């Protein structure tokens, strides 16, 4: 009988040792006589990290902390494509990533970048997904099977025949992911893959990654800002700050660390628990419910069949008393700022609005009889799945798209910020984009009056977004009065929570000045933070229209994490979740 030999130990999926990296501009200034030896501009600073085969790791951190650069180093784009100076070593499944190029690593690594538009190279979806297999020289039969399987796994078989220029951002993201997964790589690197996905697709994607990880043993390194979406799926969290690793440990330990080190990295569930004073902090909805149930059981509480939900009962206990009945009165964002009484005509109104767009050669109804009224001072989140018609509705209100039937009226004027703020920036000085007093007024409204002489390229992502908004507002402001409607399309793409909070303040400021603010967003936590009203769209029609408290706590997907834990109407943010219960207690 042949002797069974012990299988060789698998090399780590990713092994990084003492990695430091400077992008070319930073490397040049590093060597300039005045900056000799200075490490300013170091994108990665002495990073050491090992991912064992089959791990699912989450890469957390604020914007520009080095997450994207680390992922680029792991797939060989840094330094091979981006240049610059690198020190240390990076090994991917045993291959030296600094010696080998991204092409050599392609068989072992799949990479999905933040912006899907930059990673689509083919004309049709099928050709795009098939490209890596074709480059590898796979047979037609194996290519066809692999494409079909990955399309089914990502629920995109209906897209295979489409040309890529007819896809929405979320659809493009899934196609890019399919192209990265189709070769079945051992290590998959993802840079904010859910930033353009609706909550349904985002949750499905995370669980698909978990399934790939569990069933195929694929190692996952996922950079994300929306931690509440993926923390429960991760085995490990690596947090970065200023190019270095600031934390590396289990998700639960990460939450405890974030509570002390950076509140912007806290999940809503963890924030809720810390507000109420419960430990341990939960790594997801299920964990939160389990913790609460176990505490309920310890207290000997039984669910009250006719009264409040049992978890609400627990929270009342935790706060010192038991709530009486359901929470209902002033529970939503209205509690944080009531809009001015309506004396103006509506800021925007649509009547039986139908819009037809071409997808390929076929016309397609994108909006189907939308009736909507938006009052001045309202803060509205426009939500719905990818391709539901949100962006088209905003574009139609702004006059970029002509309806085929019905009317869209914006009597007080409108400023629209589209998904790519950089498209608004065509000059090399902020003041040149916005000349004169009207330009200065617009800059003042968004808080950029000090940046008149700056080059827009030198501004941070958030500042560029504000500048683009100022460009859209310029000349539409009379005295202190803003246009009737200010609309933003997916403004939180790639934005961390801290910047998200700044945006909420800006939006609230607009509403206080009497403008209606209409924001198309997939980010339910952001919607809960700013919106009083949520309009939920599906396949070109409005399927729900109500208060944020009602809409964001009444469903599975379009519900905040706190709402999913508490299941209490109105409790959509950690603060409201705790405060509402506290208010209801005698």
């Amino acid at each position, binding site marked *: 009988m042949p002797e069974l030999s012990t299988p060789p130990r698998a090399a780590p999926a990713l092994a990084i040792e003492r990695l430091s990296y400077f992008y070319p501009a930073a490397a040049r200034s590093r060597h300039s006589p005045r900056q000799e030896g200075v490490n300013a501009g170091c994108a990665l600073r002495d990073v050491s990290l090992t991912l064992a085969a089959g791990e699912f790791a989450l890469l957390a951190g604020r914007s520009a902390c080095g997450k994207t650069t680390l992922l680029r180093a792991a797939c*060989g*784009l840094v330094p*091979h*494509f981006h240049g610059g100076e690198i020190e240390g070593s990076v090994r991917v499944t045993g291959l030296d990533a600094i010696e080998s*190029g*991204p*092409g*050599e690593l*392609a*068989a072992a690594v799949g*990479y999905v*970048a933040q*912006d899907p*538009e*930059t*990673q689509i*190279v*083919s*004309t*049709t979806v*099928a*050709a795009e997904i*098939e*490209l*890596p297999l*074709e*480059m*590898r*020289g*796979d*047979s*037609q039969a194996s*290519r066809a099977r692999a494409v079909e399987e990955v399309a089914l796994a990502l629920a995109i078989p209906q897209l*295979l025949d489409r*040309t890529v*220029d007819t896809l929405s951002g979320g659809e493009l993201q899934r196609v890019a992911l399919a*192209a990265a997964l189709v070769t079945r790589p051992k290590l998959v690197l993802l840079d904010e893959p859910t930033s353009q996905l609706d909550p349904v697709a985002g949750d499905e994607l995370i669980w698909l990654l978990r399934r790939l990880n569990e069933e195929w043993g694929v190692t996952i390194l996922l950079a994300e800002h929306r931690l509440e979406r993926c923390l429960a799926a991760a085995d490990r969290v690596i947090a970065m700050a200023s190019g270095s690793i600031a934390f590396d440990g289990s998700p639960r330990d990460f939450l405890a660390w974030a509570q002390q080190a950076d509140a912007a990295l806290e999940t809503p569930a963890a924030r809720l628990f810390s507000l109420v004073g419960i430990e341990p902090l939960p790594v997801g909805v299920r964990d939160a419910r389990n913790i609460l149930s176990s505490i309920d059981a310890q207290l000997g509480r039984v669910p009250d069949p006719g009264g409040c939900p049992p978890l609400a009962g627990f929270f009342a206990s935790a706060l010192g008393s038991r709530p009486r009945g359901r929470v209902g009165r002033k529970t939503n964002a209205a509690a944080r700022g009531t809009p001015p009484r309506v004396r103006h005509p509506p800021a925007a109104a649509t009547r039986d609005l139908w819009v037809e*767009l*071409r997808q390929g050669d076929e016309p397609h109804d994108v909006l189907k009889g939308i009736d909507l009224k938006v009052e001045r001072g309202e803060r509205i989140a426009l939500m719905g799945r990818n391709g539901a018609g949100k962006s088209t509705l905003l574009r139609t209100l702004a006059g*970029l798209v002509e309806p085929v039937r019905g009317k869209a009226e914006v009597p007080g004027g409108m*400023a*629209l910020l*589209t998904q*790519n703020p950089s*498209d608004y*920036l*065509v000059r090399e000085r902020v003041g*040149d*984009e*916005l*000349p*004169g007093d*009207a*330009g200065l007024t*617009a800059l003042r409204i968004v808080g950029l009056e000090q940046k008149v002489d700056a080059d827009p390229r030198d501004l941070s992502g958030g500042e560029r977004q504000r500048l683009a908004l100022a*460009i*859209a*507002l*310029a*000349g539409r402001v009379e005295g202190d009065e803003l246009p009737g409607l200010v609309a933003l399309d997916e403004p939180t793409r790639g934005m961390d929570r801290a910047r998200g909070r700044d945006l909420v303040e800006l939006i609230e400021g607009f509403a206080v000045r009497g403008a209606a603010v209409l924001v198309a967003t997939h980010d339910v936590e952001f919607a809960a933070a700013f919106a009083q009203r949520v309009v939920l769209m599906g396949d070109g029609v409005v399927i729900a229209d109500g208060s944020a408290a009602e809409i964001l706590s009444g469903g599975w997907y379009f519900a905040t994490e706190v709402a999913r834990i508490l299941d209490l109407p109105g409790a959509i943010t950690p603060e409201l979740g705790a405060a509402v219960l506290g208010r209801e207690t005698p």
Partner: protein
Amino acid sequence: MRSPFAYTPRSGPLQAASPGAAVAYLGALVAVAFLYSNPLVLAAVGIAAALAGYGAGAGAAVRIALRMGATLALLIVAVNVLVVDRGVTVLFRVGEAPLLGRVDLTAEAMAEGAILGLRAAVAMIAFAVYSACVDPDRVLRGLRPIARRSALTAALISRLVPVAVADAARLRDAGRLRGPAAAPVGRTALLRRLMAGSLDRAVDVAATLELRGYAVQPSPRRHVAAFPPRWGGQPCNKRSRYDRRFYLTGALVLIAAIAGLALGADSFHAYPTIEVGLGSGTVALSALIVLSGLAPRRRDA
């Protein structure tokens, strides 16, 4: 809405032909435009390129290219008339102008400018037909054997136009959304932004190509050159039954043009006075070139 310059899959012969055949055909027309200065021949090339576009179902792209080409041609004429003071037929004496010195507008300078403008317009029409009718995916795959180590070159050749077209649409929308007091975008700023943005995006596309394994030699064991027809694609290296038609037409046009040059068909001189040769050779060559524009039409059409 899709740009007319964006490639649209259709079942015409030009779309079905391999990229090499399509480039040989359209390239021959552009080559003739650069070999000849005779206005009749240049006009014939323009007509042939436009006919090719209409025959291939890219009429919208041809119309826009014609408008853009005419604008560019007028600009070239205006600049040439102002800058060049050669020629004996003075149409208008402007007098002394700063930087330019004494300016006389001559018919000969205008004629030369018209020829240069016509040539540029013809090239634009041919490029518009190429962009709308030749599948960039197949160009990309076709380039791989010759540009395997340079994904950037391949990305620039095959994707720059589609990327620029998509960016231009977005920038146009953003321009329309600017507030009335924001600085107007202006064509120059827009073009600069478009070029810079498109090059940046092409670099990103090249990075993606690298990640997809573009630069890696495929394993010979695995290599099977085919492309599933259900997705509307065509194999990059599989020849089409229309290839011969386009290779032959391109070769015929080019040979006839070179022969015509040798026989003196391109008799055009702008200076000192305008001389245009319209001999039988020139007329015959022009007729042949116009007929070549019918190559992309279906035989049963």
